[in-house]
């Protein structure tokens, strides 16, 4: 068996692919090393929901047969990965991070798992998450079947939610990439807190078949990876029409870095108060430096305002209506009381009482919001904001610390997470520095199906910086 060093655990897809083709190690060697590392270190971060060591070795042996015959399937061939434990994998537990579903087993695979398997990617494990992806509104990081997600940069801090394990596992070099989900902030937040590049795709671009539904009109699946380029490769693999997902947009995605628009042609909208006032003081030097990098790249930064709407209220109302319907059997059975977080239990119970008129009002307003936001993209190509305004919270700290410094009078882009999710916009998270030893990240948000533009900016940023290559001290 070939020796696999620590650098391999932090390698990009292109680097892993080159090593596999050069026979520096086999896919089986890589799968064994990664799954053993995941089993050994995953619990250290409460990141592992289920190890799939034997399954991974079986898949990797098949990949090796293909590689031996020079049947190449792209950069994902032979690369191990993990999925958030809300994706069905036939014959294995899928807990949704919640005690009432701890013994749940499906007979089929999620579409994204089948798509990745078709390209030779090797599923090494399922990764922890906030229970029910946070549906109902949780108050503590401990709202998970596997305990609070621990941040690889400081295990006294939270890894973020709800895709806690996906972000932590990539940050700690336990898997080269992972799949997570976002309904409102569940990719952006953990990626920002853990210092990982991640992509929230346009709504409908990636099939959710086999994923736990929290909100039919808000849920999205997306990758956590080593770089923007890797996110592009993974998105191309998992995107596409799926008749089994009623929300599927019926569109494919082709990652085309060769056709990227020049940076100088791009107008990037931002709100200065987000960085100068809303962001916690310790994070501001990192944000200032990151903005300087973008300016040096040639993008045109223009002050922009979001259309003025109650995005948070609309999102919460829509979410309450849809999750109440989805989890009504859980609530009615009383098993909802087995969840770990008491405010979350109350939030789920209350959701059953949401009047239909309120849900419909929110969905009608959503149409108006969509129109206004799309109009805004007539004058800018991308929106820029802090991924989070502060560093990761302590694991014993309620999530009511606030979003950063004292909220400035100017609302800036503070509603960019609910706005982006309501309108179904793609977002790219880029690590951009550190504050108090913890990662800080930018988020770039684009118009629907503008992933290639976001990835081009991300790729350019990552040729000028190395924040995405930094490794946690204990890894």
């Amino acid at each position, binding site marked *: 068996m070939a020796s696999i060093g620590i650098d391999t655990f932090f390698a990009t897809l292109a680097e892993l692919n080159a090593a596999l083709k050069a026979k520096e190690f086999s896919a089986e060697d890589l799968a064994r090393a990664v799954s053993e590392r995941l089993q050994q270190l995953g619990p250290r971060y409460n990141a592992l929901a289920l190890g799939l060591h034997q399954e991974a070795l079986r898949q990797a042996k098949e990949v090796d047969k293909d590689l031996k015959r020079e049947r190449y399937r792209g950069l994902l061939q032979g690369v191990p990965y993990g999925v958030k434990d809300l994706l069905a994998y036939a014959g294995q537990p899928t807990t949704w991070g919640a005690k009432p579903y701890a013994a749940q087993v499906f007979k089929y695979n999620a579409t994204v798992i089948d798509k990745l398997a078709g390209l030779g990617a090797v599923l090494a494990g399922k990764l922890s998450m906030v229970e029910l992806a946070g549906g109902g509104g949780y108050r503590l990081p401990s709202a998970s079947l596997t305990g609070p997600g621990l941040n690889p940069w400081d295990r006294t801090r939270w890894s973020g939610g709800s895709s806690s394990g996906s972000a932590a596992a990539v940050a700690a070099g336990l898997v080269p990439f992972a799949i997570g989900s976002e309904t409102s902030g569940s990719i952006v937040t953990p990626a920002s807190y853990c210092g990982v590049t991640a992509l929230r795709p346009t709504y409908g671009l990636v099939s959710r078949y086999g994923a736990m539904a929290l909100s039919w009109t808000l849920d999205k699946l997306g990758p956590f990876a080593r770089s923007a380029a890797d996110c592009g490769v993974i998105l191309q693999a998992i995107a596409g029409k799926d008749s089994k997902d*009623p929300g599927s947009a019926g569109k494919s995605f082709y990652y085309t870095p060769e056709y990227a628009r020049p940076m100088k042609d791009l107008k990037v909208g931002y709100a200065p108060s987000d960085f100068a006032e809303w962001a916690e003081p310790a994070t501001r030097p990192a944000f200032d430096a990151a903005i300087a990098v973008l300016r040096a790249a040639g993008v045109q930064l223009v002050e922009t305002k979001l259309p003025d709407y109650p995005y948070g209220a609309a*999102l*919460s109302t829509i979410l309450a209506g849809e999750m109440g319907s989805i989890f009504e059997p859980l609530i009615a059975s009383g098993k909802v009381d087995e969840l770990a977080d008491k405010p979350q239990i109350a939030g789920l119970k209350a959701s059953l009482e949401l009047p239909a008129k309120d849900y419909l009002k929110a969905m009608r307003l959503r149409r108006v919001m969509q129109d206004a936001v799309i109009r805004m993209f007539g004058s800018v190509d991308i929106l820029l904001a802090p991924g989070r305004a502060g560093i990761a919270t302590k694991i014993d700290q309620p999530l009511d610390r606030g979003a950063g410094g004292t909220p400035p009078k100017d609302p800036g882009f503070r509603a960019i997470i*609910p706005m982006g999710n309501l309108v179904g916009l793609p977002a790219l998270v880029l690590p951009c520095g550190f504050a108090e030893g913890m990662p800080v990240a930018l988020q770039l948000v684009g118009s629907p199906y503008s992933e290639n533009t976001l990835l081009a900016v991300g790729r350019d940023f990552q040729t000028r910086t190395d924040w995405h290559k930094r490794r946690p001290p204990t890894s």
Partner: protein
Amino acid sequence: MKLTRRKLAATLVSATALSAQQTQPPPPAAPDDLLQIARDRLKANAAALSAVPLPMGTEPAFQFKA
């Protein structure tokens, strides 16, 4: 100053349900109180939405596929 449930819920209007940017003060432990806070939050959200004028012809932002 006494913090009423309604005032408490009003502070939560702009918070997203799933991200960590919620701004609620520590809730009491009693399940009934937590449920009431959650109900008040729904009402506060509805009040915020009602404040936005909406043309009568505006249809909801979802599509059904036949």
